């Protein structure tokens, strides 16, 4: 803006500037106002709207601080600490104030003591323990008070004259058992408030468990570098497996989808020729491929190949094929006949199994367990199996186990049927006996 004005001044053009509307000068004023000290107007104008790229140091004195009034005086003052039993007078600096000087020392609130119960001679009769003398119990409680229940420190300092050597757990067990008994003694269990009951339950110290826990912690602590390394490696492996699991699952699903082929019953004889293959291809493209885009491309390729005149190579192949079809139909049956019948031992060796009936698609063997028993017995059979703690679904369903399982099922079914029959017969027998007795009495 100002640059424009400079040009005007230089050219000595004054008329039009007056005729300009009032707005521009106003704007100009604004920019001038924004302009910081230490930068010329011309330079500032070149900068335009952007702020200056470097900070401009203003040579100005710091503003005089505004005091709130008079400085607050401090004084070297005596104080006593209510947390002390003697009235030791120490001195510290304090803000001078008109407030009464008997304000409590503000750090006395940190004088926190743990509440350790005390017991009378009468009460001790109930708290007796063969392993602990009264003196030693007193000694323990004194230490608890002195060290605010830091049992590790208490154990560290524990030195009862002519006493046994005690573990941390021994000390804890004794302390908590005394506290628990005392609590129960003073307020019977049924009269305790919920909070008290909670505390009471918390006082239950399981020494055995704690000891074994510490033993295990010790074992963990004393691991050798090799063990530590092995554990680290296993953990890394676990992490890897967990992160890969999702991917593995997806891959597996994909694989299963791929394996779900169209029905493969009937002989493959029809597909040995090129025409047959073309038909199969068309069928597969149409039926199994669910991807529309891929399908359309495949179809396009297909039509391109089919629609045009068959190339000589294709033609010659088809010619050969057509003659071969008749022969192959014969041949296709021939090898089947030639297949060697395997003996039972060989079947076992090669793992060959013949199935009576197989429906199409892929199935898990475990889902193919035939239910030989029917109706109401089936439910009873499964109940009986559950009672015997035999899983409904086998964890390792090999053909052998499936066979055994089926056998078991049918055997159980037979047994149940027999049992039912037996009961029926017995019932009939009883009825008949009763009738007989009645007839005897009558006579």
């Amino acid at each position, binding site marked *: 803006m100002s640059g424009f004005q400079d040009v005007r001044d230089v050219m000595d053009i004054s008329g039009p500037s007056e005729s300009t509307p009032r707005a521009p000068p106003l704007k100009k004023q604004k920019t001038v106002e924004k302009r910081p000290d230490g930068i010329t107007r011309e330079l500032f104008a070149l900068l335009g709207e952007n702020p200056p790229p470097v900070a401009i140091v203003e040579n100005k004195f710091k503003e005089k601080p505004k005091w709130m009034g008079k400085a607050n005086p401090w004084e070297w003052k005596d104080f006593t600490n209510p947390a002390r039993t*003697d009235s030791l007078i120490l001195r510290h600096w304090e803000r001078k104030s008109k407030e009464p000087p008997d304000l409590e020392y503000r*750090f*006395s*609130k940190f*004088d926190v003591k743990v509440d350790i119960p005390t017991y009378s001679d009468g009460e001790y009769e109930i708290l007796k323990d063969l392993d602990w003398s009264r003196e030693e119990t007193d000694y323990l409680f004194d230490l608890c008070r002195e060290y605010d229940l*830091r049992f590790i420190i208490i154990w560290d300092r524990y030195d009862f004259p002519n006493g046994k050597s005690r573990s941390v757990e021994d000390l804890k067990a004794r302390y908590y058992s005394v506290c628990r008994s005392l609590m129960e003694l003073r307020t019977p269990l049924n009269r305790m408030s919920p909070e008290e009951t909670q505390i009471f339950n918390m006082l239950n110290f399981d020494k055995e468990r704690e000891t074994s826990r510490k033993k295990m912690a010790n074992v963990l602590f004393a691991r050798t570098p090799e063990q530590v390394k092995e554990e680290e490696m296993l953990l890394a492996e676990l992490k890897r497996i967990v992160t890969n699991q999702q991917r593995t699952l997806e891959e597996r699903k994909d694989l299963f989808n791929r394996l779900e082929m169209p029905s493969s019953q009937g002989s493959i004889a029809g597909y040995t020729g090129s025409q047959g293959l073309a038909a199969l291809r068309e069928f597969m493209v149409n039926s199994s491929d669910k991807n529309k885009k891929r399908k359309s491309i495949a179809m396009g390729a297909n039509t391109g190949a089919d629609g045009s005149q068959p190339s000589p190579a294709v033609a010659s192949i088809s010619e050969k094929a057509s003659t071969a079809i008749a022969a192959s139909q014969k041949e296709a049956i021939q090898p089947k006949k030639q297949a060697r019948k395997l003996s039972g031992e060989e079947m076992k060796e090669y793992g060959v199994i013949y199935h009576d009936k197989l429906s199409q698609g892929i199935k898990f063997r475990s889902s193919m367990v035939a239910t030989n028993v029917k109706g109401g017995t089936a439910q009873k059979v499964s109940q009986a199996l559950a009672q015997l703690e035999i899983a409904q679904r086998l964890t390792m369903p090999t053909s052998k186990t499936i066979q055994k399982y089926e056998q078991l099922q049918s055997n159980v079914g037979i047994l149940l049927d027999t049992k039912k029959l037996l009961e029926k017969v017995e019932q009939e027998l009883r009825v008949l006996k009763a009738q007989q007795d009645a007839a005897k009495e009558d006579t």
Partner: protein
Amino acid sequence: MSHLHQTLSSNQAPSTVEYGGDEISAIVLDPGTAWTRAGFAGEDTPKSVIPSDYGVIDAVGDEPRKLFIGDNDVHAIRPGMEIRNPMSDGIVSDWDTAPLLWRAAITSRLTTTLAEHPLLMTEPSWNPPKNREKTIEIAFEDFDVPAFYLAKSGVCAGFASGKATGLVIDVGASNISITPIHDGLVLRKGCTRSPLGGSFLSDQIRAYFASAAIPLTAHYQVLSKNAVEAWKPADAVYKTFAPGQEPTDSYKRFQEERVLTEFKEYTAQVWTGPGPLPPSTGAHDAATSLLSTTGRPFEFPDGYNLVFNSERHRVAEGIFHPPSMLTNYAGHPDPSSTLGLNALIHASMKDVDIELKQLILNNVVITGAGSLVYGFTDRVNAEIAAAFPGPRVRVMAAGNSVERRYAGWLGGSILASLGAFHQLWISRKEYDEHGAGIVEKRCK
């Protein structure tokens, strides 16, 4: 009654934003074997640090015994002045002089009115009850302080690093001590120490010089010197003394010690491992080729200078592996029965509750001027990590050498400037009531 005042409930943690300091102008005194440190509580460095060694000219005829205390006095050459030290094994053994030293440390720079300032002193964890009682007696009877407290230097060093739980490895002049602390209290069963501190390292260096026929001169013996090539004999003019005017042997040794300290600071280095330093097998030993670091030169006060290679590692190895210490001098520790630093740590951790082991190993604090030897903390770190592979080990050592040297004092300074601490002081009234035995009850 003490419980009439309002206190926090026992399950409420104190606020962390609250400022806990309340300075009452207490004096903190940390007497060590090499140095006696004193200063005002709340400050970050002791204002007054004087050598614990003092000069003494015994009474002759009418002349009374003369003491020379402090850096300005003790280094002056005086015929017949013996240098002595009131401490042995980190605790006071000469009760006549120790209080004089303490008083000098305080009055020379801090205040002359001891009766106006509460006094906090530090003590090693193995200080016997008799010594503690003696200390409180001196504080109240001799210094006439209004209040007194005796804090464990291990705990204080932990506080200086901001740790109330941890393992404090203090490498002092007279010994290395390991103090496990928990909640600001020493775990007595885990306290171990062995005499492999700074003086031991000096003795090792001295023994090495003797075995390698390297002449050791002190600064005071040299009047002027000319620069010479490495391994060339010194070209210096030595000071001569008229018969009867020579300084004593103890003075000579004391001054030589300063040269050895220079050597420790500048040339000696701890072998950082892994494992102990390979044994020496003659002039060109395996270690020399193994140590990829080049030698470091050292110049003696008389200008004699040479480069030290594997020897500068060898002199410090005895701290970690006592069997490899040099034994060609009288009064060396027994190489077979003395515990090295790693064995000390092991012995210390053995008696610590399993619950705490993890936490303590995660807070290992190294203090003491002896730990400033190059490579020391790295070696300790490696040794602990190898000894305890399971838990996470974290070794802390202040990078600032002032903080490392005065950690015990600094912790005491922090402690004595806390508002919540002021209820723990033993007051004069309590001392008058219960006698010196109160120190056992109150300073745990």
